C-alpha cells in the first residue's frame, strides 16, 4: 500500500472539488466475484479499487471515481425519497442524476470528460435493461455518440433539451421517472438484485437515496467485505484521518533492520485541568541573559553596520602617508545562527507511575520538566514541539501531540495535565517518529524517560536498547541530536547505553534544568 497514493487521492478530491471526506480503501473483488462500485455518504467515501498505487497514471479509476463523487457532493442536494418508485425507475433517476452532476461538472471542468469517457465501453447492440442503461449513460456524456436505439435517443434528446434545467435536482427525478416508465413498457426485464452500475468509476447510488426504506435503495447489497468485517468485530480500515506510520526496527541478533516493523499511531490529545508552576526568578534571569548574548560584534569586516574606529584610524593614517589602506573598515553586529528546533519526547509508560527520588511520581517530575521547558524555550525563540509516547507491542505504539510546532505554548498545559501513565516504552519507534516530525536540517530531540525501554512482546532486554541506539545513530546521520534527560541520577547509566554518556544529562534538580535550558539556548549542546 502506498501512503503517498492515499494522500494523492485525498488531495485530488480537495483540488478538484475543495471537498474532504475520509477515503477508505477496499480491496479489489475476488476474481469471478461480483464487481463492486464505490460508495459515499456523509461520513466517508469507499473505493473498492484496491490499494492506492504509487504512480498517479496507474490510479485513473480512483481518480475518475473521486471526480464523479465530488460532483455529487458539489451539485447534489440531499437524498431522494424513493416513495412508490419501482426499482427500474430508481435506477434511471440515479442514472440521470449521475449524468446531471457530470454535465454541471463539465461546465466548470471540461477536461473531466477525458477522464470519464474511456470507462464508458457500452456499444450499440445488446438490448437488456443494464445494456440500455449503460448505452444511455455513455450517450449522455459523449458528445459524439450516435446510438441508434430509440430509447437512448429519446433519453438524450430530453436530457439536452433544456440545459438550464440541470441545476434543478428535480430534473433527474422527473426525467428518470419518465424513462423508467418507458423501459417498463418496453417489457425489458430488470432485476434490481443483479444490477451493477456502469461504468466502473460511478458510485453504487446508495448515497443518493434516503436510507430508512431499504427496499427503495436501488443499490445492490452492501459490500461483501463490510458485513464480514462487522461480523468479525474488526474496525473498518482507517481512513487518512487516523494516521498510521510504520518504521523499521533494528534486531541486534541478526544485525539487520526489520522493515516496516513497528506501527506508530498519532492520538488526539485529551485536555485536563491545568495547574500552575511556581515561577523561577533565576530561570528568568538565565533567559534574559541568553537573549542579550545573541549578538556578537565582528571587527575589521569588508562590510558592516558601522565603521570600526581602530581600522578607520589606521586607514586614514595610511591614506595620508600615500599608501593603500586596508579595505576592512567595518564592524558588523552579528546574530548567532538561528536556534535549531527542539522536540521534547515524553515517556508516559506505566513505569512512570513509580515514586520519584524527590517525592511524588516520576511522571509528575517529568511533567514539571515539560512545563518548564515549554515556558522557557519559546521565550528564547527556540522552535519547540512536545510529544508523549507509549506502546503496547510493535503494532500499537501511540504518540500524542502535546504541542505541535505552531501551537501556542499555552495549549500544552491542559494536555500535559491529562497524561496518565500506561503501556510500555518502545523508544526506538518513538524516536524515529519524532525524527520524522522535525523540519529538515539540524534538530534536537530531548527524551524524557525513566530509563530502560521495554515492551510486552519483547523478552530480550538488550533488543530495544540496541534498537533505540540504532535509531539515535540514524538520526545523528540526519543532523538530529538525541539528548537523554534522566529524572534521577541512577537512570543515567541506562540512558547512556542508548544515547552515549556525552549525550545524557541528569535534571533531578532545578539548577540542572536551568543549566540544560541555558545550553540549548546558546546552541552549545552539540
Amino acid at each position: 500500500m502506498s501512503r503517498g497514493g492515499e494522500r494523492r487521492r485525498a488531495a485530488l478530491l480537495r483540488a478538484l472539488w475543495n471537498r474532504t471526506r475520509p477515503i477508505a480503501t477496499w480491496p479489489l473483488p475476488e476474481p469471478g466475484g461480483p464487481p463492486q462500485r464505490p460508495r459515499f455518504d456523509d461520513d466517508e467515501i469507499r473505493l473498492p479499487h484496491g490499494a492506492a498505487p504509487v504512480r498517479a497514471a496507474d490510479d485513473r479509476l480512483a481518480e475518475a471515481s473521486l471526480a464523479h463523487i465530488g460532483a455529487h457532493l458539489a451539485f447534489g442536494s440531499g437524498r431522494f425519497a424513493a416513495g412508490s418508485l419501482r426499482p427500474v425507475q430508481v435506477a434511471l433517476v440515479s442514472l440521470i442524476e449521475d449524468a446531471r452532476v457530470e454535465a454541471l461538472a463539465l461546465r466548470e471542468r471540461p477536461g473531466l470528460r477525458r477522464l470519464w469517457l474511456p470507462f464508458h465501453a457500452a456499444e450499440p447492440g445488446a438490448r437488456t435493461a443494464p445494456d440500455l442503461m449503460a448505452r444511455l449513460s455513455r450517450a449522455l456524456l459523449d458528445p459524439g455518440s450516435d446510438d441508434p436505439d430509440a430509447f437512448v435517443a429519446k433519453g438524450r434528446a430530453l436530457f439536452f433539451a433544456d440545459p438550464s434545467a440541470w441545476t434543478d435536482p428535480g430534473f433527474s427525478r422527473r426525467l428518470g421517472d419518465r424513462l423508467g416508465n418507458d423501459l417498463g413498457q418496453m417489457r425489458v426485464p430488470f432485476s434490481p438484485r443483479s444490477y451493477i452500475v456502469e461504468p466502473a468509476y460511478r458510485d453504487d447510488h446508495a448515497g443518493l437515496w434516503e436510507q430508512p426504506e431499504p427496499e427503495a435503495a436501488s443499490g445492490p447489497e452492501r459490500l461483501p467485505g463490510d458485513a464480514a468485517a462487522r461480523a468479525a468485530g474488526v474496525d473498518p480500515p482507517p481512513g487518512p484521518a487516523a494516521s498510521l506510520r510504520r518504521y523499521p526496527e533494528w534486531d541486534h541478533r541478526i544485525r539487520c533492520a526489520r522493515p516496516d516493523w513497528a506501527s506508530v499511531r498519532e492520538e488526539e490529545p485529551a485536555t485536563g485541568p491545568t495547574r500552575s508552576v511556581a515561577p523561577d526568578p533565576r530561570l528568568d534571569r538565565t533567559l534574559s541573559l541568553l537573549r542579550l548574548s545573541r549578538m556578537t560584534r565582528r571587527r575589521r569586516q569588508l562590510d558592516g553596520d558601522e565603521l570600526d574606529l581602530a581600522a578607520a584610524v589606521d586607514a586614514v593614517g595610511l591614506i595620508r602617508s600615500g599608501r593603500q589602506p586596508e579595505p576592512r573598515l567595518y564592524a558588523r553586529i552579528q546574530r548567532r545562527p538561528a536556534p535549531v528546533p527542539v522536540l521534547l519526547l515524553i515517556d508516559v509508560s506505566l513505569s512512570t507511575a513509580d515514586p520519584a527520588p524527590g517525592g511524588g511520581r516520576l511522571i509528575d517530575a517529568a511533567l514539571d520538566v515539560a512545563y518548564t521547558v515549554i515556558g522557557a524555550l519559546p521565550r528564547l525563540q527556540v522552535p519547540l514541539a512536545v510529544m508523549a509516547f507509549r506502546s503496547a507491542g510493535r503494532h500499537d505504539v501511540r504518540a500524542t501531540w502535546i504541542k505541535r510546532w505552531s501551537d501556542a505554548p499555552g495549549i500544552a498545559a491542559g494536555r500535559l495535565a491529562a497524561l496518565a501513565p500506561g503501556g510500555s516504552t518502545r523508544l526506538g519507534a518513538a524516536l524515529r517518529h519524532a525524527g520524522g516530525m522535525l523540519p529538515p536540517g539540524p534538530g534536537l530531540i530531548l527524551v524524557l524517560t525513566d530509563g530502560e525501554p521495554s515492551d510486552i512482546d519483547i523478552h530480550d532486554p538488550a533488543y530495544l536498547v540496541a534498537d533505540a541506539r540504532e535509531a539515535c545513530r540514524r538520526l545523528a546521520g540526519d543532523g538530529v541530536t538525541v539528548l537523554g534527560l534522566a529524572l534521577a541520577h541512577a537512570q543515567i547509566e541506562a540512558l547512556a547505553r542508548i544515547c552515549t554518556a556525552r549525550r545524557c544529562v541528569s535534571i533531578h534538580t532545578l539548577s540542572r534544568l536551568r543549566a540544560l535550558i541555558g545550553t540549548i539556548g546558546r546552541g552549545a549542546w552539540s
Partner: protein
Amino acid sequence: MSGRPLLTDYLIRTEPYYRPVGDEAALFAAAYAARLPMILKGPTGCGKTRFLEHMSWRLRRPLVTIACHEDMSAPDLVGRWLLDAGGTVWHDGPLTRAVRFGAICYLDEVVEARSDTLVAIHPLTDARRMLPLERSGEVVPAHPDFLLVVSYNPGYQALQKDLKESTKQRFGALAFTYPAPDLEAEIVAHEAGVDASCATRLVQVGAASRALVAEGLTEGASTRMLIHAGRLIAGGIGFAPACALAVATPLTDDPALRDALAAAIAAQVP
C-alpha cells in the same frame, strides 16, 4: 547634497494597471492625507506592491522600495559613514533619503528584517515624524510628503516571524487577499493578454491550488503565478504545460500534491 533630483528616478510616470477590489484606493489616499503609516497585509503575489505603485503614481510621490531580508541592518536603511581621501563622509541610506526629500518609503516583506533593525523606524511613525541618525548625530525631520508603508504576508509562517507589537501599533493596515474569481479572471486576462475563458480556467487552477493548502501545500498559487501562466499561453504554449511550468512545478515538490494539481489542471483542458 542635492535633493529632489535624487528621487526623480523613483517617480512612476505611467499609470500602473491596478483593478480595485473595494474602496482600498480611497482609504489609502485618506491615510496618506493624514500621513498615517500603513501596513499592507496579504498573501504572496496578490497585488500589494502593484497597489502601492498605483497609489504612488496617483499621489505623484516617488516610491522608494526596500526589500527586507534578515541580514539587513539599521545602517542599510538609514545610512553609514564611508571613508574617502579627506576622511569620513556620511552617506544617506534609502530610508533617510525618502525621509529627507518626501517619498513614499516601502519596506517590502518587513517581517524578514530583524526586529532591532525595525526599531529605527519608530520615531518616524509616531507624532515626532523624525529620523534620528544615531551614528552621525543628525536628526532628520520628515518631509511633509513622506509616508512609510510596509508589507507582510501573515500566512507565511517561518517559525515565529511576526511584527513586534510596539511596531504594529503605529500603523494603519489594509488587508489584501486574492480577488474574487471573476475579478481575478479580469486581472489575469488584462495582464497576460489571454481571453476571458482562458483566464477563468486559470483562476480555477488557482482556486484548486489554494484549496490544497488544507492538504499541506504551503501557499496556494498567487495571482502573479496565474498571470505568468497566462503569458506563456498567450505566447503559444498549451494550457497544461504552461500551468505545470508556471504554477504546479514551482509550488510544490510533494508528489501527491503535484499529481492532484496536475489533475485539476487537466480538468480545465477541454
